[in-house]
């Protein structure tokens, strides 16, 4: 691995100085990136260090286990490495932000897979290990490395029960995740993206299954990986189709061809390319981003340690699908009808609503956050589908911060209350001593998620909502999303009102982060908290978060508020995120954006690489919100809807609550119809059961049937053939009676037959 680094960076530091490497690389990278922004298309190899630092971190963390380097060393390695990577990213961002729209830097490491793939001299398949840097990359990498660094810091405290081997394992996977995510985001070709794509899947698998003694965790990990693989099926086929049609998987060569609508030979594309390729890519995106039909893995993924849920299953990995679609947006606009985008919008809206309903009926606060993540991802997809890549990316950006905040708060609660996550068994946490910062941060997160006015979440959600009403034919998407916004506000504050405010009451959880202690792990004896998590609630003392958790949560809360500010930075380009997106391949002038007074931006058309006649066509039939300009009124509408949701939540769960277990909503459940719906939603609409019955079980049965067929029929046939000589021999053996006359008869018969044969043949 080190050798690889040396090869890539071309510096002596990579190969030789193990400990000094991160620092040296960071410095080299800093200088390099800063200097490069002037050069047009080459980028210094040092940007590769953004990905390779976490990889090095993973290697170092892995080494601590066999070397028995105790303590929190892995965490510090991780935090340091990620901080350096973040620093590099910032430098990279400064380099990239100077580029003109549509321009990108390419840092070419080495040729990962390359060979002559055809007879012609130019027929080469090349999938380099190289990075394609434009503003979209930069946007994603900023929050990937930044959040990664913060959450690693948080995890250093959160995971302290596991100091020992598990600790190192956690941080190896954590680092590996950041590496994979960096590859995914920064890849300059689809195959390297696929590497990252599968890599994050692996890390997700390893981290969900971190508490591997819990059967649920193992099952959840397996489920996550496999469902993701199903999505990857589409992605891989999409990559193959793209190579088949365009003859390249490298962005730098691919995007011009996509823009021109020409295939590898310079001829116009067949019509099917316009929908097959996007459809296949969407399949991958749905899998990774837990959209309709594929979302089932994400709630279960909450079995993983909470920092993982925050980083991977809320902020970064699950937005990879959004990134993919944004990155490959030119492919989505190849088709005149763009019905794949319509599909994306529809599924996004349905997913958003669907999972919001489930979230309303859950009791596990982490699961509620999980379903809320799916729901918010639905928003993002709907945003993509209704042609506002900016809105989608902005929502990704804001969501990353506030959802991370929410998760980390939930994690802090879980950490402090011995794994207790049931909102019926916790109450008034904010009022417990030492939980102030957490409570405040939770409030900030909830406000964001609920779309409370002037929070970042409010603006980003609003962008999508408004555009949904503008884009022709997507109004129903807008209504669904609007409804979902209300539900979101309700379930978010349901959590807040029940857990963080109200009477102080808590019951500790049943386990210590899933460690049953039936093996050689005995963590409790190692860090001086023996008994701290005693299971008898009588003597239970919540374990208040210490500096690392508090500071990270606080910082994130602040950031999630601050994210709103980016909306106002570049008003001509729909905010900072809009500028970033607008300069990248995802640039797309959503229809009607220039109608909006606040966002009027005629320039955006200039960035549109491939709109061709579509913009005009759409402009003819722009939608409205009940006759109003959606961009103008949506602020008020969504604020109203959010407020209603919060109000309902207060009425049902906040007002007049005496104990943790009861709330005003309980009365509602006595209504049989409500109870029925509640049970359905609580059981997640039985989707898992349906999947099991329709897919898993039949395949499993098929496996058994095949195995039987294999053993009885196929192998039976083989054995029958094998037994044939024996059977024949057995038959023939009867003739070998040992009787002289018998032999004579047989021989005479043989002679007679031969004679007859001759007579027959000669006549």
């Amino acid at each position, binding site marked *: 691995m080190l050798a690889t680094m040396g090869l890539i960076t071309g510096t002596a530091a990579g190969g030789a100085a193990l400990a000094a490497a991160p620092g040296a690389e960071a410095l080299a990278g800093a200088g390099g990136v800063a200097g490069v922004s002037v050069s047009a298309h080459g980028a210094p190899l040092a940007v590769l260090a953004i990905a390779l630092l976490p990889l090095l971190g993973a290697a170092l963390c892995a080494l601590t286990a066999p070397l028995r380097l105790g303590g929190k060393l892995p965490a510090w390695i991780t935090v340091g490495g990620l901080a350096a990577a973040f620093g590099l990213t910032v430098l990279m961002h400064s380099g990239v932000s100077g580029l003109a729209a549509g321009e990108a830097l390419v840092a070419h490491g080495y040729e990962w897979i390359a060979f002559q793939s055809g007879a012609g001299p130019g027929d080469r398949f090349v999938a380099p290990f190289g990075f394609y840097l434009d503003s979209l990359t930069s946007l994603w990498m900023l929050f990937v490395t930044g959040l990664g660094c913060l959450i690693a810091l948080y995890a250093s405290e959160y995971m302290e029960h596991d100091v020992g081997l598990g600790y190192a394992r956690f941080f190896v996977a954590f680092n590996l995740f950041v590496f994979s995510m960096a590859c995914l985001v920064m890849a300059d070709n689809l195959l390297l993206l696929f590497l990252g794509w599968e890599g994050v899947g692996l890390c997700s698998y390893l981290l969900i299954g971190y508490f591997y003694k819990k059967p649920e965790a193992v099952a959840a990990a397996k489920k996550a990986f496999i469902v993701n693989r199903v999505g990857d099926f589409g992605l891989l086929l999409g990559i193959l189709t793209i190579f088949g049609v365009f003859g390249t998987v490298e962005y730098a060569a691919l995007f011009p061809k996509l823009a021109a609508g020409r295939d590898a030979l310079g001829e116009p594309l067949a019509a099917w390319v316009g929908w097959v390729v996007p459809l296949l890519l969407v399949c991958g995106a749905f899998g990774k981003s837990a959209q309709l039909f594929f979302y089932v893995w994400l709630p279960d993924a909450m079995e993983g340690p909470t920092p993982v849920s925050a980083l991977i299953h809320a902020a970064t990995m699950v937005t990879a699908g959004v990134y993919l679609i944004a990155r490959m947006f030119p492919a989505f606009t190849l088709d005149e009808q763009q019905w794949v985008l319509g599909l994306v919008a529809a599924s996004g809206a349905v997913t958003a609503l669907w999972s919001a309903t489930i979230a309303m009926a859950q009791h596990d606060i982490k699961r509620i956050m999980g379903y809320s993540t799916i729901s918010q991802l639905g928003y993002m997809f709907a945003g993509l589908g209704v042609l506002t890549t900016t809105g989608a990316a902005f929502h990704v950006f804001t969501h990353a911060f506030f959802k991370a905040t929410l998760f980390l708060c939930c994690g802090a609660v879980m950490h402090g209350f011995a794994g207790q996550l049931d909102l019926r068994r916790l109450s008034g946490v904010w009022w417990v001593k030492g939980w102030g910062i957490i409570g405040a941060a939770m409030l900030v997160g909830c406000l964001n998620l609920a779309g409370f006015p002037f929070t970042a979440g409010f603006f980003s959600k609003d962008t999508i909502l408004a555009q949904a009403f503008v884009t022709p034919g997507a109004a129903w998407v807008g209504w669904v999303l609007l409804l979902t916004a209300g539900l979101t506000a309700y379930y978010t504050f349901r959590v807040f009102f029940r857990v963080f405010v109200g009477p102080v009451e808590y019951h500790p959880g049943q386990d210590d982060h899933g460690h049953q202690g039936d093996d050689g792990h005995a963590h409790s004896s190692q860090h001086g908290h023996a008994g701290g998590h005693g299971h008898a609630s009588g003597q239970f003392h919540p374990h208040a978060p210490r500096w690392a958790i508090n500071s990270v949560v606080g910082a994130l809360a602040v950031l999630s508020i601050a994210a709103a500010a980016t909306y106002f930075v570049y008003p001509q380009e729909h905010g900072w995120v809009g500028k970033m997106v607008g300069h990248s391949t995802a640039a797309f002038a959503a229809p009607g954006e220039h109608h909006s007074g606040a966002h009027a931006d005629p320039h955006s058309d200039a960035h549109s690489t491939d709109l061709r006649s579509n913009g005009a066509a759409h402009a003819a039939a722009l939608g409205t919100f009940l006759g109003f300009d959606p961009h103008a009124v949506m602020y008020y509408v969504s604020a109203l809807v959010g407020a209603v949701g919060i109000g309902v939540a207060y009425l049902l769960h906040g007002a007049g609550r005496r104990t943790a277990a009861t709330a005003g909503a309980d009365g509602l459940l006595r209504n049989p119809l409500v109870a029925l719906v509640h049970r359905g939603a609580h059981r997640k609409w039985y989707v898992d059961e349906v999947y099991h019955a329709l897919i898993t079980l039949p395949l499993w049965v098929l496996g058994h049937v095949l195995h039987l067929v294999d053993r009885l029929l196929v192998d039976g046939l083989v054995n029958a053939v094998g037994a044939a000589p024996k059977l024949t021999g057995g038959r023939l053996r009867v003739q070998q009676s040992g*009787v002289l006359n018998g032999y*004579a008869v047989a021989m005479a018969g043989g002679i007679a037959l031969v004679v007859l044969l001759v007579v027959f043949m000669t006549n």
Partner: protein
Amino acid sequence: MAQALAAAALGQGAFPEPVSGVTLYHYLFVSAALFALGVIGFVTRRNLIIMFLCTELMFQAAGLALIAFSRYHLHHTGSAFVIFVLTVAAAEAAMALALVVLLFRRRQTLDGTQWRQLRG
């Protein structure tokens, strides 16, 4: 059968002058009959001596055919062959009788089917 074969094969029906009344067919027929009798006897009889005599019958059937052909072809090759056949037959007879005596001394029977220990 032999008649038909010979007719088809040799295309001529009669011996040269001295024995013109009797054709080659007749000899061949007798020879074939002898051979068939020998075979049938060999497979049906159990007495070793009779069985051996049946093989002698087959040998002599061949001898008869040889002589007939020898006459037919008007040279003595076949006749000479028969002399050798007789010699060999005699040698076989000697061996057969020795064998039969040996076997009889062991089992006090001449029934060939009694020897069926080896089989399968």
